[in-house]
């Protein structure tokens, strides 16, 4: 297999703005006085609380239990007292049930946490169970339960694992810092994952704008003599989208409506790989993660290690607060992240960044009529007709939207990024997807 065309068709080149935070080593955010831990931080069924108001918990104690296979538990991220179990603002869902824990300031650890001897010799099922019990969900944004991804059906063997270090979203540098500061843990995570999958080919995919990270991994891989290859990807958004990444590296095309496993591939983000290592080798549940706090609205952009459930306000305060011309707060990157209406929302397992954007760097323009310039069509990495899809949804012609592949949209936002008419394609398409799914369910029933 030759590795020549390390990119995909379509895509855009947004300004990277990574310089704001890429030099900032990861700092630990001081413990918050309280945390808000939503029952749903992953795709799938929400977890069920197993603590009651008034209970005392330690850091790393399980506080809610997974419900069904596609679900993960969550853990206390600080020690203290359960204050409430109630609806709270949620960065993705608007509002959702959450467990509020008031800190006792001691950060007392759960006794379950500790190194596991000879963890690589563990049984595969045992490893998966640990990963599930540690509450792992993809940390790149979509937050799909990790153990589910690691359990492909027997008829879909995985032969290729790809570590996604592309971090193609502008501004975000958390993965970049993780790769520089914790490469060994990440690699160990990769080895565990490959062992679970029993797959032979492993790729470490990093965009060329992070030459230092590429060098670090190249060196480590050479030394270890692993069956791993470091791949330098062309810088283009959305290079880190699973389907585009797989195409760039293996030249395989995930079928429309399919999953990476349909072409024998699996992709995990670097943060997830590190968490896999911690879950299996240290019995450490996912109660903290690294978050990039950036944007021109942030006085001192940083990369922070943060307890899950910490309100956005704490991170922003620690970074010097907001500038007066901040107009938008985003959970995630500027291309796919979600705008927030309050700083009370907590960091969740999927929060890769918190951005404060000023009016000069964000877009708040009234949509104009489509002038059919074709730019959106040109950049769509999924080869869709974004202008047509947006219009069909607007006219509520969902049947046609479905035929034109509205469900295949990966919501990367490239179309809206280049649109001179500032049309909100992703907004329309997301709505269209909901309606189409409803329609299909109604038909099936």
């Amino acid at each position, binding site marked *: 297999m030759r590795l020549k065309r390390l990119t995909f068709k379509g895509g855009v080149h947004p*300004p990277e703005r990574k310089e704001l935070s890429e030099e900032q080593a990861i700092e630990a955010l001081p413990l918050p006085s309280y945390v808000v831990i939503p029952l749903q931080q992953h795709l799938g069924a929400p977890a069920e609380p197993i603590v009651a108001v008034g209970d005392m918990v330690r850091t790393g104690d399980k506080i809610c239990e997974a419900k069904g296979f596609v679900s993960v538990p969550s853990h206390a991220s600080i020690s203290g007292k359960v204050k409430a179990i109630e609806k709270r603002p949620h960065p993705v869902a608007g509002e959702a049930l959450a467990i509020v824990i008031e800190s006792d300031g001691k950060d007392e650890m759960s006794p379950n946490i500790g190194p596991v001897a000879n963890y690589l010799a563990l049984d595969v099922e045992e490893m998966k169970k640990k990963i599930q019990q540690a509450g792992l969900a993809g940390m790149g944004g979509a937050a799909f339960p990790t153990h589910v991804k690691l359990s492909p059906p027997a008829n879909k063997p995985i032969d290729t694992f790809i570590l996604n270090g592309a971090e193609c979203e*502008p501004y975000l540098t958390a993965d970049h810092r993780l790769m520089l500061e914790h490469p060994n843990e990440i690699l160990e995570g990769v080895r565990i994952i490959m062992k679970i999958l029993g797959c032979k080919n492993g790729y470490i995919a990093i965009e060329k704008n992070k030459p230092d990270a590429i060098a670090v991994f190249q060196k480590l891989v050479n030394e270890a003599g692993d069956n791993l290859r470091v791949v330098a990807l062309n810088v283009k958004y959305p290079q880190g989208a699973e389907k585009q990444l797989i195409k760039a590296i293996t030249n395989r*095309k995930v079928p429309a409506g399919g999953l990476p496993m349909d072409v024998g591939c699996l992709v995990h983000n670097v943060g997830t790989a590190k968490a896999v290592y911690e879950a299996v080798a240290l019995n450490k549940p996912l109660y903290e993660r690294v978050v990039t706090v950036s944007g021109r609205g942030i006085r001192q952009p940083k990369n922070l290690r943060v307890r899950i459930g910490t309100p956005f306000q704490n991170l922003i305060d620690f970074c010097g607060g907001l500038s007066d011309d901040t107009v938008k707060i985003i959970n995630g990157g500027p291309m796919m992240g979600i705008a*927030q209406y309050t700083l009370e929302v907590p960091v969740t397992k999927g929060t890769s960044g918190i951005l404060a954007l000023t009016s000069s760097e964000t877009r708040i323009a009234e949509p104009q009529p489509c002038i059919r310039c074709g730019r959106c069509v040109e950049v769509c990495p999924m080869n869709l007709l974004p202008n*047509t899809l947006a219009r069909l949804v607007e006219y509520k012609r969902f049947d046609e939207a479905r035929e034109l592949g509205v469900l295949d949209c990966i919501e990367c936002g490239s179309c809206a*990024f280049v649109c001179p008419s500032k049309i*909100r394609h992703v907004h329309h398409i997301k709505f269209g997807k909901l309606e189409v799914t409803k329609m299909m369910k109604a038909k099936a029933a």
Partner: protein
Amino acid sequence: MEKKWFVTASPHIADQESIPKIMYGVVISLIPAMLGAIYFFGPHAGWVMLVAVASAVATEAIIEKLMKKPITVRDGSAVVTGILLAMNVPAEVPWWIPLIGSAFAIAIGKIPFGGLGYNPMNPALLGRAFLLASWPTHMTIFKTRPLEWITHHPGLAQFLSKLSLYTPDPTGKFSLSGIDVITTATPLNVFKQQKDAILRFADDPSMTEKVKTAHEAISQLYDSYGNLFWGKIGGCIGETSVFLLLIGAIYLIYKRYIRLRIPLSYIGTVAILSWIFGGVDGLFSGDPLFHVLAGGLMLGAFYMATDMVTSPVTSAGGYIFGIGCGIITVLIRLIGGYPEGVSYSILLMNLTVPLIDRYTKPKTFGKVKNK
């Protein structure tokens, strides 16, 4: 204090393009050709362009005001329509021709469909078609020969010749006395008459000879491909200088406001077909370079067939559209009733765009064919 943030859908950043930027980009790209028009045809050409733009903008503003709709003239699209309309009329038309043409383009060709983005056909070309149908004489008589106006201004002639922008014409090449029909015609016009004559007098060798002599005269009229290229020929205001149009086109391509697929396939098709079928001595005796350089092809191919609103959004669609325009243009030029076919071919192809878009939809990433 809370809730002051904007909560709109992703993405939250965008590149710098906007409708006005694109439209004024097109205007900028047309500046060389506009200046060239004034140079070749005199100040009157300037007035024609000014009236056309003013009329387009005013028509749009007035109608929108009457309909109590937001006034959109600032987006620049009416300005573009005005300029393109002016570029498609002869330099010496009376002032009310561009006035009516632009008003028609906006009032009939654009607003009733819902304004910018919704019009199925290029408004400027629709305006021109209307003018041609209503006042054919004004629209087909080209009184002014290029640069002739300068001879009436000795001071200016002297000044321009100092800048080597003008050579007084001792050979009288531009007067061509004795061949009246040629003196007021565009090269394509003459080509058409010649071809018709050859067909009509096919059995009369003496006539064919005469026509062939006339052909020599045409070549004198444009003298060389060079004159066609630089623009020293009769024609509509904006279509004569291939050179100046290309400068603007390069700018548009550089800014990525147009893609090469439409102009290339359009011009290529015209070249190939006119080479095969355009000659008087059988197949493959045509003069493709003449057909490419003469008339409104360059203006049409780079500035009007590429009109975003009225051309396909898909890449394959662009090629089909261009080839379609090329075929119709050559058909009209060679066997139709008009000497020039660019406007009509683009207008006709405009109507096929929804169909082209539908059938050239790119295959969704990962889509298997039979599903």
